[in-house]
């Protein structure tokens, strides 16, 4: 009985989660003439015209490229910065370590929305508004605490003797980081890459504030173009959403195993 109840509850949750996705996919393939049909009705005749329109006329090819560049750079740079900081926090002794840890902790607690305006001022101060670099700096600054803690919790599980053995073998701290610790931190690297990529890929607020020129915009901002005050381009919105979702879904499917291992790192010994 308990098992059936659990399956029922899980089934309901699954339907609630998946139904908007199905609705979006159906709509994106429907010819405009079929939009009068009930939204849950599958497309009678499939059409790719909305995808072509969104990709070419609506400028999604450029938005896609912009988003890809920002997200990929975010993910790669975040891996380097966060893992280096976490390495120092876990394996090295230095003055001010505790203060630094507390600062990272504070970074975890402050919501982005609370500091988005000062952040905008800073980025503007550096003359980086309407540049991808400005968005990348802001992304990294806002999320670095999370990933420093993620890498730290993974590194804490690396036996201390490995670090010591490498020191005895004559490795410098950077050689230990690069040749001993990082190669065994693959789950943490993959998790960081995926999560940072995903956050960067989906973020709207920072991009809306920092990228006002159309040629610099990203997919999330591009989707807003399909919504006016009085009108809504439902097919454009749906196919744009699917285009935006595909890379992330593929990445997750591909790296799922590593991702779960990274998320649970440090949970048990």
């Amino acid at each position: 009985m308990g098992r059936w109840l659990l399956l029922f509850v899980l089934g309901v949750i699954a339907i609630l989660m998946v139904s908007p996705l199905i609705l979006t996919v159906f709509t994106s393939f429907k010819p405009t003439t079929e939009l009068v049909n009930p939204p849950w009705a599958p497309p009678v005749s499939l059409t790719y015209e909305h995808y072509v329109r969104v990709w070419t006329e609506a400028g999604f090819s450029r938005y896609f490229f912009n988003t890809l560049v920002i997200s990929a750079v975010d993910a790669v740079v975040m891996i380097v910065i966060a893992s280096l900081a976490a390495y120092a926090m876990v394996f090295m002794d230095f003055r001010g370590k505790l203060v630094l840890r507390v600062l990272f902790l504070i970074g975890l607690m402050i919501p982005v929305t609370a500091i988005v305006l000062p952040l905008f001022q800073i980025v503007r101060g550096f003359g980086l508004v309407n540049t991808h670099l400005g968005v990348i700096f802001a992304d990294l600054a806002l999320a670095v605490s999370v990933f420093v803690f993620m890498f730290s919790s993974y590194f804490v599980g690396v036996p201390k003797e490995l670090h010591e053995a490498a020191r005895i073998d004559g490795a410098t701290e950077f050689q230990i980081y690069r040749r001993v610790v990082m190669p065994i931190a693959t789950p943490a690297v993959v998790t960081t890459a995926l999560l940072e990529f995903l956050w960067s890929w989906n973020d709207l607020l920072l991009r809306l504030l920092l990228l006002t020129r159309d040629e610099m915009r990203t997919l999330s901002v591009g989707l807003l173009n399909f919504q006016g005050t009085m009108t809504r381009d439902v097919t454009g919105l749906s196919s744009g959403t699917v285009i935006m979702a595909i890379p992330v879904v593929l990445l997750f499917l591909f790296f799922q195993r590593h991702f779960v291992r990274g998320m649970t790192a440090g949970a048990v010994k």
Partner: protein
Amino acid sequence: MAGVQLINLSKAYGDVEVLHDINLSIADGEFVVFVGPSGCGKSTLLRMIAGLEKATGGDVMIGDKRANDLSPRQRDIAMVFQSYALYPQMTVAQNMGFSLSLERRSKDEISQKVKEAAEALKLGPFLDRKPGQLSGGQRQRVAIGRAIVRNPQVFLLDEPLSNLDAALRSETRVEISELHQRMNTTMIYVTHDQVEAMTMADRIVVLNAGNIEQVGSPMDLYNHPESEFVAGFIGSPKMNFVKGRYAEAVGATTLGVRPEHFAIGQGDDTWEGRVTLVERLGHDTILYVNVRDAGALTVSLDGQHGHQVGDTVHLRPQLEFIHRFNEIGKPIVA
């Protein structure tokens, strides 16, 4: 190769001093074993020689160089860890050649040295395997191999056999002794197992609560312990300590008799007791005997004996081998 000297060496964590004023001179090529109970400071001392822990006071000399401020890599030492500490992502060959690759030696030289070490340690067929695909004994041999390819001045071994089963432990013990004879490099070995210490060491350093209790050859320590602690720690099964009338009869506060220094006999000079447990090891028989006024004693008899639990036996301590200690646990010299 180089000797090691520890001069007034001390170590404290905050207010707690764990090593007090250690003075020790280890000769070039010597095999020295640090032995003592858990928490006595033996591993800390080894780590200070390695440069993994900083000394609070005193000096570590390796060869004729003061090593206090040298990093582990500058000390030209190699260390074998209890947990092997092999790099899991590297093959056996890469593990063994890691230190040489850091020194930017040529690939041919690295491969040659790794091959030589692997042959000496019977690791030839496993060079392309990862540590996770090896048994405990093989992993420990890789850890030793990683140390010997560097040809260091000093070998440090921190309880390297603790994770091995009994059979493999004695086998690897022999291999390490042979390795020392072949290389003739200074070796400092930490263990809590006095059998390892007795069988391998040129000299044993017995540590207790952060102090050196005694330094000497294994037989020196066995025959002439300078304290009740050393007498009890060296020898297996451990020495019996008897207080009361039996000790007073020989002018001591505590009388020490090794289990193998009891004979079974009859007469007024024997101690009557009841057997509470018998362990038959084949080559000898261990009796646990309860003697009035002496307590529970362990007796080791050569060969096989038919004693049963509940038997009454008469023990005669061999007077020429007894140890007499005063009230502070120091030996009474006749």
